[in-house]
């Protein structure tokens, strides 16, 4: 059984044809009719024959409607060849190892666009394949099928995995520096360890119990800094920057390592749905605009600008995975979102890596406004790609 993507060499087709004939003989006419009407297996679509000779493809220019299309590639040259449909340097579909005198069939579901086709020898001129929009491709533009989100969600999952591994490693370095009594090293390690945490905060913040142990600020506790419950990153920050010492921080560092390790495991179990890529980023942008940017989170070390940049990187990672879909569905939405990220990044860059203490209210307001605009734009994404 060969699916649309596989080459059928004549030698391999034969036993199948025999098996098929046997099956048909047993199955009889009624079932045969039923199969013909209802089997929703891969259809071939319209069939186009392309002959590759020593000098190139014949025809060299093809125009086909979007959707399932079959190409019959005939190797009329004297070399084994590879036939490819190319989008820039990327291979969209290909059929390899077609021996001289043989033909191979390739069925592909093509999206609208202009592609090149490779035609035998690498020095041969490439052909052109134009795929024109069809009713189904137009409908899929604004409502992509679920499978269009598998790639983006997988990529984001890889990103979360890499960042949470970095978080565990960097937090361990912070603990090591604290235990070595290295104040400067610990301060540097503190800033570094927060970056992977902030990059995945838009999803990790859903794990409330761990977030409350990892990243609470003193204001959440009755006795503030003196409260025995005050722990996590900011408790360590308080020691390193306000008390100017690593003394007594080791237990907090060990607990933090344990908590970020648990966070990594919990994130691995977390199942995200397509809507999450945009909504978690939008929620994060709102949280920054309304709370973190006006007030700052790092009240002792004032290292907030580094945190914000990491937040923005993480948000852009998840949202950018949807760009290919948004660009096709609503180019204006794609542009607005990209501009939103660029403007916010520009507003952050302007402040450099200044101590957040020195960033005045007016500048904070501008930065907040940039995050608000960004949130509003990200919030239009899911509608644009048919999810709401």
């Amino acid at each position, binding site marked *: 059984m060969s699916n649309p993507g596989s*080459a059928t060499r004549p030698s391999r087709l034969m036993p199948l044809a025999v098996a098929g004939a046997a099956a048909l003989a047993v199955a009889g006419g009624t079932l045969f009719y039923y199969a013909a009407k209802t089997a929703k297996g891969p259809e071939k679509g319209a069939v186009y024959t392309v002959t590759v000779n020593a000098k190139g493809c014949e025809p060299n220019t093809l125009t086909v409607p979007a959707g399932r299309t079959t190409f019959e590639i005939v190797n009329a040259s004297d070399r084994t060849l590879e036939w490819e449909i190319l989008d820039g340097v990327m291979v969209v579909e290909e059929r390899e190892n077609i021996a001289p005198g043989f033909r191979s069939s390739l069925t592909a579901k093509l999206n609208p666009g202009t592609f090149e086709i490779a035609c035998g020898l690498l*020095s041969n001129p490439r052909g052109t394949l134009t795929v024109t929009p069809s009713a189904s491709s137009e409908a899929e533009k604004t409502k992509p099928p679920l499978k269009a989100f598998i790639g983006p969600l997988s990529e984001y999952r890889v990103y979360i995995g890499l960042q949470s591994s970095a978080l565990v490693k960097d937090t361990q370095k912070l603990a090591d520096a604290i235990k070595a009594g290295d104040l400067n090293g610990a301060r540097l390690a503190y800033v570094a360890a927060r970056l992977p945490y902030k990059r995945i905060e838009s999803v990790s913040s859903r794990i409330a119990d761990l977030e409350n142990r990892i990243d609470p600020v003193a204001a959440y506790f009755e006795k503030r800094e003196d409260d025995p419950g005050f722990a996590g990153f900011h408790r360590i920050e308080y020691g390193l920057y306000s008390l100017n010492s690593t003394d007594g921080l080791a237990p907090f560092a060990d607990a933090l390592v344990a908590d970020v390790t648990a966070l990594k495991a919990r994130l691995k179990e977390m199942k995200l749905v397509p809507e999450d890529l945009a909504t978690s980023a939008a929620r994060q942008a709102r949280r920054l605009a309304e709370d973190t940017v006006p007030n700052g989170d790092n009240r002792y070390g004032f290292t907030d600008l580094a945190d914000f940049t990491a937040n923005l990187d993480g948000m852009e990672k998840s949202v950018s995975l949807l760009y290919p879909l948004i660009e096709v569905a609503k180019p204006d939405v794609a542009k607005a979102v990209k501009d939103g990220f660029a403007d916010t990044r520009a507003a952050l860059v302007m402040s450099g890596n200044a101590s957040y203490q020195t960033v005045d209210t007016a500048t904070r307001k501008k930065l907040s406004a940039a995050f608000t605009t960004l949130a509003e734009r990200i919030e239009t994404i899911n509608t644009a790609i048919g999810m709401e």
Partner: protein
Amino acid sequence: MTIKHLFGATALSFFLTTSAFAESATLDLVEPIAEYKIYVSEKLEKLVEDTTAFTAAVKAGDVAKAKALFAPTRLSYEAIEPIAELFSDLDVAIDSRADDYEKAEADPEFPGFHRIEYGLWEKNSTAELGPVADKLLADVTELSKRINDLTFPPEKVVGGAAVLMEEVAATKISGEEDRYSHTDLWDFRGNFDGAYKIVELVRPLIEKKEGAFLKTVDANFAKVDTILAKYKEGDGYVTYEKLTEDDRKVLSTAVNTLAEDLSTLRGKLGLD
């Protein structure tokens, strides 16, 4: 539908498998695709590391060492070929054969692994290979970067299992790929491992409904694995020329069946 179509894939899959209706892809695929990317990233890290050592040996003029490193270096590349060959420019630069060039081996454009293989085995020399080695390392490094930035298309990942077995059927069983060094069994192993990995990753998604299918696939994988094991030597494999005609036939049948069977995997997972 004509009678001719009934000999084709669509109707046959109706009769020979239990599922008459197309499956829809589900988000259960997210985890296997993500795991596959991690697998590929690890292979790429090894590929860059091994290519660095291999090209250094070529540049140092150490023919014996370069020969020894050629096949093990290719192993990681062969395992991830379905993804690596998505970038046509780099696929050509890294792994094209002399046949793709007008003047074959004599063509100055002939690059990559097989150009170096040709020099090492046919000329027993590293002469003129320095720039080819530099270019190969640069291309492999660029490949690693591009793949790390790539969102993996799920249908290419799942379809990759069949692509790898087709690759074995077309180029390794014939000894065509590594025609100067006859190290084809190493490449075979890389392709085999890559295909098996993909099946392992999607197995939990289909094992309830496709038990019989998986049983057949596993049996053929086992058959191939057993024969390959006979030819193991040290960390690798003996020369392709030692493969007996009988074993070649058994391998060929098993690999062709695997290629056919695995080509239905996309459909079973709703990715057609």
